[in-house]
């Protein structure tokens, strides 16, 4: 069944988009990532203009995050204080991102920067997660207790930051400047790459801050919810690239997928779930790295003046 997307200006197979949303929703429910790191490249591959893909997938993540946050908050799985600090940083970050986006667009290097960001971030995070989860799986097989996720409970530079706050849900006593900075970075990434930043937030909270694993996914979804909502607004106002029909189709799939995913996660052992996410993340990174070095299909690209 074909549907015409009014902003993207092309007609797509509605079923394909709904299924794509569904697959991404399952990942989101399982791992607390928005799934934008998959949606955006796949939409661009399908022929959707990059700006529309980035803006509309941000809208989709908002909806997907809602059901996740609701589910996790009932289980006390959200540290709202940590979440609000991340959101504040994220709001500032998304404004700065909007400015940076326009600057890069003018120089014509936005695509390359976005691709390089993807490769570097996904590659690094994928490797780190794979290493950690393989160790945990091996330890479990030998019947030992899994090794602690962070060796250093509080990283030195984080501990050196002034005025500490107590984050009860996260089980931390650290300076809010660290999560504020993290929020800022994810806000930047949301605008530039159309991702909720969950794939950065989750590992950063786990491995850098040592946040209690119980609240990581919920808190990441909470921050993603607000930051993607802000991003939708920023894109609506500046690039006019939010496609309601496209976002709607993605949402139909992903809100259902998110529910399936969060039900599935209770049957999979967490270290195995992390290993699966690590593999997916690395696969995307490798695909994008190949894309950068292979001769592209289109040597020439056009931009309206």
């Amino acid at each position: 069944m074909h549907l015409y997307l009014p902003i993207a200006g092309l007609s797509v197979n509605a079923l394909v988009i709904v299924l794509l949303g569904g697959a991404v929703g399952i990942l989101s429910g399982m791992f607390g990532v928005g799934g934008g790191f998959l949606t955006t490249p796949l939409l661009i591959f399908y022929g959707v203009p990059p700006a529309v893909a980035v803006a509309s997938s941000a809208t989709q993540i908002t909806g997907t995050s809602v059901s996740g946050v609701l589910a996790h908050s009932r289980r006390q799985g959200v540290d709202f204080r940590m979440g609000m600090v991340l959101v504040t940083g994220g709001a500032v970050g998304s404004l700065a991102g909007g400015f940076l986006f326009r600057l890069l667009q003018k120089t014509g290097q936005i695509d390359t920067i976005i691709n390089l960001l993807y490769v570097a971030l996904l590659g690094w995070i994928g490797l780190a997660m794979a290493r950690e989860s393989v160790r945990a799986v091996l330890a479990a097989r030998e019947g030992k207790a899994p090794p602690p996720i962070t060796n250093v409970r509080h990283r030195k530079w984080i501990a050196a930051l002034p005025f500490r706050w107590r984050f009860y849900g996260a089980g931390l006593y650290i300076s809010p400047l660290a999560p504020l900075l993290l929020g800022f970075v994810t806000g930047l990434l949301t605008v530039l790459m159309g991702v909720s930043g969950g794939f950065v937030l989750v590992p950063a909270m786990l491995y850098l801050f040592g946040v209690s694993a119980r609240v990581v996914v919920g808190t990441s979804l909470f921050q993603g919810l607000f930051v993607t909502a802000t991003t939708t607004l920023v894109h609506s106002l500046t690039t006019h690239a939010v496609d309601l029909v496209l976002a709607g189709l993605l949402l139909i799939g992903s809100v259902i997928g998110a529910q399936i995913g969060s039900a599935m996660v209770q049957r999979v052992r967490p270290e195995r779930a992390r290993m699966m996410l690590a593999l997916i993340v690395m696969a995307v990174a490798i695909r994008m790295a190949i894309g950068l070095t292979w001769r592209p299909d289109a040597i020439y690209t056009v931009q309206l003046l």
Partner: protein
Amino acid sequence: MSARFSARRRRPLLALIACLPLLIGASEPRLVPDVSNTQIDIAYSFTGAELLLFGAILYPGGRAPAPDTDVAVVIKGPAEPLLVREKAKVAGIWINHASERFRSVPSFYAVATSRPLDRLVSPRTAAIYEIGIDNLLLSPANGASASEQARFESGLIDLKRSTGLYAEHVGGVSVREGVLYRALVPIPARVPVGQYTAETYLIRNGHVVAVATREISIGKSGFERFVAQAAQDYPALYGLAAILASLLMGFGAALAFGRVRR
């Protein structure tokens, strides 16, 4: 209603006036063109359209129709200025390294002819009337060398061709006994909106002997038009509506799956 009616009546008249200089020779034939639809609406199920251009060739003084009459139909979308970027391998990765501006690039261009272009008109005539994709005047604006401009031009044209926005349909026009012609031109789903022109050229012995122009407007309709306009005119409301819609859908799914009780 009446204004619309009169505007419609006036159009063939204008076309006639446009043809007057050609008619003054008196011995040359005249075109009576028509088009299947002067308005193409893009609605939710739009997957492309087909435009039928047809008409008659009138010969003055009751002369017998000439069998060697050829017809070319050119459909052009609104012209726009473009920046074309070229990628090159720098330090192992492909990045944009050079660019060229073009002042007026038709957003859509389709030509249908009754014979291959090189046997239809002389290169000079083809260039004057912009018949054929390679004869488009794209007005490069950077002042680069001619060979460089040609490289960017062919890159741009290849890109447009691959997306179906530029097309040549050789043999797409059939002329029946030198009197009636018809051309079927496919319009792809990605067609840009705007005011289009359909030009019909009557060609004999490699020369254009009559021209007729019809206007076609391609626009979004119904819900699609509403969404596209809202995104442009009320961006803040549109953004809030998008957020609200996604929140409601997320909440609805959570409810439906029984994750939120009470």
